[in-house]
């Protein structure tokens, strides 16, 4: 277990450094890292500190958060198909963010944007869990997720279409696919409290999730308060997804792919899968964000496109496996 921890941490740090030295301005890797630390007021320092550093930090926070949320949801529902993007929570969070921006809430209140996205995410999680039931049957869960995504997506498009701003309508893609391009340190500060509170809440329930693998009755006899567990998980997931979506749009599949790959390495134990998925999510999103900048640097390729290209085939594979399990 500790070996996995070391490998994942090293991978995350390595990608963080690569992420800092990749960008449209052709600067040598050594020069750019020196400029980041030195801070001599040159344009190089400005680029490193105000453009690349926030982007790298956001990739770690959001990727880690999404990986953690996916692992927590899957542990609670005991269903490998649960993921914030797929069950529609990211879409409702995006709707909250878009409403906040266009109602002027984001401009008038400094935390207005993430708070509105958090509210959207909360409503999304509650509705989906309500529809799917605590047993989390795959079919109802996915169907509820599809319905929520479609509804929230349509409402998001509606708000953007009605905006008097000519650029708003073209942003539908951003809110549905997500991007870290041109985000600033302001967004890091917006996200940070939500990411940390959310992660703390999820990690605090690790023991409960382990107990749940034995079934609900067994968990209850072990002294786990299921309704409390559920509430804390919902709030934790909503914090992370709300904060992430508010600054980077809805990025899907991270919470699906990462726990799936790491599950065999942690002996399918939810508590260990939580932190492993956090690190793994940070790795996956950083890799995707580097890919976006290397493959089509001039096109602002959306992050969600890359994660979906990786994640969707895996999702189909999981559905196939689930179907065989049912038969």
């Amino acid at each position, binding site marked *: 277990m500790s070996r996995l921890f070391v490998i994942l941490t090293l991978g995350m740090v390595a990608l963080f450094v690569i992420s800092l030295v990749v960008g449209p301005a052709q600067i040598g890797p050594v020069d750019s890292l020196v400029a980041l630390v030195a801070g001599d007021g040159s344009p190089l320092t400005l680029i490193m500190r105000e*453009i690349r550093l926030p982007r790298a930090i956001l990739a770690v926070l959001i990727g880690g958060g999404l990986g953690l949320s996916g692992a927590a949801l899957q542990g609670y529902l005991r269903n490998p198909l649960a993921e914030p993007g797929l069950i529609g929570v990211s879409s409702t969070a995006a709707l909250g963010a878009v409403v906040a921006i266009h109602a002027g809430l*984001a401009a008038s209140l400094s935390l207005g944007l993430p708070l509105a996205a958090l509210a959207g995410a909360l409503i999304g999680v509650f509705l989906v869990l309500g529809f799917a039931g605590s047993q989390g049957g795959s079919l109802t869960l996915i169907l509820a997720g599809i319905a929520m995504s479609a509804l929230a997506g349509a409402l998001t498009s509606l708000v953007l279409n009605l905006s008097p701003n000519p650029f708003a309508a073209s942003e539908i893609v951003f809110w549905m696919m997500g991007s870290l391009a041109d985000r*600033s340190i302001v967004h890091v500060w917006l996200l940070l409290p939500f990411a940390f509170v959310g992660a703390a809440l999820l990690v605090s329930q690790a023991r409960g999730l382990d107990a749940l693998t034995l079934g609900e009755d067994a968990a209850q006899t072990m002294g786990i308060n299921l309704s409390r567990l559920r509430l804390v998980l919902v709030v934790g997931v909503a914090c992370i997804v709300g904060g992430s979506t508010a600054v980077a749009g809805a990025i899907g599949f991270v919470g699906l792919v990462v726990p799936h790959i790491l599950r065999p390495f942690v002996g399918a134990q939810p508590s260990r899968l939580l932190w492993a998925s956090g690190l793994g999510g940070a790795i996956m999103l950083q890799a995707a964000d580097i890919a976006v900048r290397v493959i089509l640097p001039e096109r602002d390729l959306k992050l969600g496109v890359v994660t979906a290209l990786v994640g969707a085939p895996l999702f189909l594979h999981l559905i196939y496996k689930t179907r065989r399990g049912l038969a």
Partner: protein
Amino acid sequence: MNLCTDQLAMLLASPGQLISISNIASDPLVSAMVDEAATYPMNFGRAEEIYLLAPDLVLAGQYSRGNAVEMLERLGVPVLRLPFAQSMQDVAANMRTIGAALGRDRVGEEMAATFETRLTTLREDVATPLTAALYSANGYTTGEHSLSGQILLAAGFENIATRAGIPYGGVLPMELLIMAEPDLVITSQPYPGASRSEDILKHPAIATLRSHQRRATMSDQQWVCGTPHVLAAVESLVADRRALQEASE
């Protein structure tokens, strides 16, 4: 049927000659002639309403309202499609074209001549041109071969986009903008209602770059259409350039 042809027509037509203009000409954000526009009946660029007005001539932009314009042509309404002004020569040529189309050749010729003289007096030879970048939503910049690029050149600035290899227009990554260290960053005017695309203009990196610069914005009123109003944009940029040069001396 087009913001730019509307404005030229309002300037050139004889009283009573112009029977309707597009709704965009009344938008104070993009139109420099809102007050004048209020005195004309408005249309929304739909083929049906324009056909019912039974005009002798419809003035449309080269690319605007393609379907409606084609429909009018099919219905036998004469349409003049005015090319998009991409240079100062185009602006003067368009004035002459519209003047001729309205049977007011002399007025059009006069306006074009005045425009050319005023432009020549504004243009001066600058020994060491300052650099400037046009920067709008989503990091879009425009190069030399555009009206705004020509306004920049006329005011004696060197366009950063040209150096970055963007002749017409395209996205200039923020990192490259900052590496180029332009003397002036001219941003677009924000539209009402927020958008994420316009967030980029408030990015801390841009703010730091501009912190020791003069503020300059391009108002769509003066920068979009090839009308005499572009001279006002050139004038204000020339003032910016002089102030910058004095400050550096």
